[in-house]
């Protein structure tokens, strides 16, 4: 098994309230899967992404990557593991400004301690692969949104990771560029890459093969994807209840803020 979560929970403490962003989630992901993660805001899908990509440590439960228990890894070990096994694609691209596409793509290799020459060669090859072979010297400011996201995809792939986490990869793009990125992800998956994609667009989710729906920190649906319409219906159904949850959360947050403010006043 490539990635396995065993009753993983992530709790945030907000004042005196505990928010259970993830509540005993158990999940297995095999190599070569393409998974879409959906759910209304506050459902725990972002937290799931952070915990599963070992950016954040879970409050409880166990995480296995390639059957190895990585739950208790310290920050250094997790950094190294992310570098080796995990690629990230963000909604905001998160490229280094005023830095060439080549250097942006090569960045993970810097931390993998690969030599300059090999780094440049591999980065060049990867940029070729995403169709930007003629743009290697350009900085993000000189590239369109779609091109920037393709640079980010090349960066995610450069160290040949086992899993790619994509957080709303088309969320910040016009529909044409969005389609291009989706095409790219589909191709990657066909080549055998495991992709876990968080999205709120049923159309985007439709390119995946498996849909996992979150609500209130738990998985409410985990099924094979048959078509876009089905996804839309499912997500609407979940979101309907989800909006209520969101409102509840908001009022909770407000209460906490109020408490904090009165506390501060008392201090003064």
């Amino acid at each position: 098994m490539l990635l396995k979560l065993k009753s993983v929970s992530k709790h945030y403490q907000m004042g005196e309230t505990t928010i259970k962003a993830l509540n005993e989630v158990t999940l297995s992901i095999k190599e070569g899967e393409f998974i879409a993660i959906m759910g209304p805001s506050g459902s725990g899908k972002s937290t799931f992404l952070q915990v599963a990509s070992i950016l954040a440590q879970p409050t409880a439960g166990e995480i296995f990557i390639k059957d190895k228990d990585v739950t208790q890894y310290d920050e250094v070990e997790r950094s190294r593991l992310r570098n080796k096994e995990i690629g990230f694609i963000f909604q905001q691209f998160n490229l280094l400004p005023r830095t060439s596409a080549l250097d942006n793509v090569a960045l993970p290799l810097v931390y993998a301690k690969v030599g300059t020459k090999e780094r440049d060669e591999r980065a060049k090859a990867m940029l070729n692969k995403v169709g930007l072979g003629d743009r290697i010297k350009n900085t993000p400011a000189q590239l369109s949104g779609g091109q920037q996201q393709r640079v980010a995809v090349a960066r995610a792939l450069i160290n040949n990771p086992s899993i790619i986490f994509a957080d709303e990869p088309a969320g910040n793009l016009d529909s044409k560029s969005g389609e291009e990125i989706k095409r790219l992800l589909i191709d990657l998956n066909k080549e055998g890459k495991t992709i876990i994609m968080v999205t709120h667009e049923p159309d985007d989710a439709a390119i995946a093969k498996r849909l996992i729906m979150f609500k209130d920190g738990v998985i409410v649906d985990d099924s094979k994807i048959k078509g876009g319409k089905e996804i839309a219906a499912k997500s609407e159904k979940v979101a309907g209840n989800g909006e209520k949850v969101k409102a509840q959360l908001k009022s909770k947050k407000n209460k906490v803020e109020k408490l904090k403010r009165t506390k501060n006043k008392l201090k003064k």
Partner: protein
Amino acid sequence: MNDIFLVALKAIWINKVRSALTMLGVIIGVGSVVLLTSIGTGLQSYVTDQFASLGTNTIYVMPGTPFTEEGGFGGQEAMLEAMKPVLKERHLRKVLRNNRDLLDDGLVMAVATGKAKYGNTDEKVSFLGVTANYETIYHTVAEKGRWFTDVDNEKKKRVVLLGPTIAEDLFGKVDPIGKKIKLESKTYKVIGILEEKGGGFGGPSLDSYIYVPLETLYDGFDVLYIDNFTISAKEGVDIKEAIKAIEKTMLTELDEDEFSVADQAQLLETIEGILGMFTIALGGISAISLVVGGIGIMNIMLVSVTERTREIGLRKALGATPNIILVQFLIESALLSIIGGMIGLTLAYLGSLAIQPYFPAKVTGQAVVLAFGVSTAIGLFFGAAPAKKAANLSPIEALRYE
């Protein structure tokens, strides 16, 4: 490591203007420390050289007690005491007469000030009244013309020798030998130019004095006071013994606190002590600007860490360990400081070259090493807090940061 270095260098390069402004504090700090200490050390070695050229068996008798026994400086009161006209020529004669077995020769040095005029040029100068043996005791020969003689002195002849500086000031390219100059409205004949000797102790340079026979000086000028007796001890005589003997004779004429006797080494020690303090004080004052420069670096690095929170989060997500981030920011602040330090050092060196014609400045290797070390230390010290802050950022918080 090499790559982190490049990342840091690039971060500095990308924010050129900000980096330059940040460096400015260190540039000014290192520049002023190096320049001012170079002036101090230059002055010190200059004075030392000067004394060495005057000979080692020379003993001075001075009015008052300007120098304390510990080699320190007696302060303002002692300075005023030193200006009192207590020394008399007969004291010297008695000293020489009583200690013939120890002392070789001696002279009185009297000082007056006034105007010297040649043609349309006039200058305010100091006149040094000395006897003919100044030539041998101070090892100062006439480069052109001749020294005056004892006879010139006894007859109060109006002849003078010029230091090379004052000769140049008054005559320019004209050969002064045999020319008449007006000193305090009386006419004197220039009979010689002295070789270049450089600075005097505390007063103006020996090269800018006009040397007048002592009796002539008494005759024609308001003599302010006798500056000192300069006595040369016999070859092979213990200088300490000679000093004791002189003190003993002087005590028959004056009180203990009205005069002091010192040899070359003692004087040198005292003056070096003063100049050393001077150098440290100058360095210390300019070191404050170095600290301010360091705080500037810390300030900008903190801003930089906040500004680049997303970048830090991204680097961590992609595999940078906290230590790599720490080192990256430390190198960045150290580089800022070192580059600033090197620029400051270069400026200080150019500055010292620029003032060298007027002032003996000297940038020592020690100062270079110190500047390098101090700017590195400042970069690391003041960069530590911002770097620590960057290293401890949580990647999730950092990525979420807008």
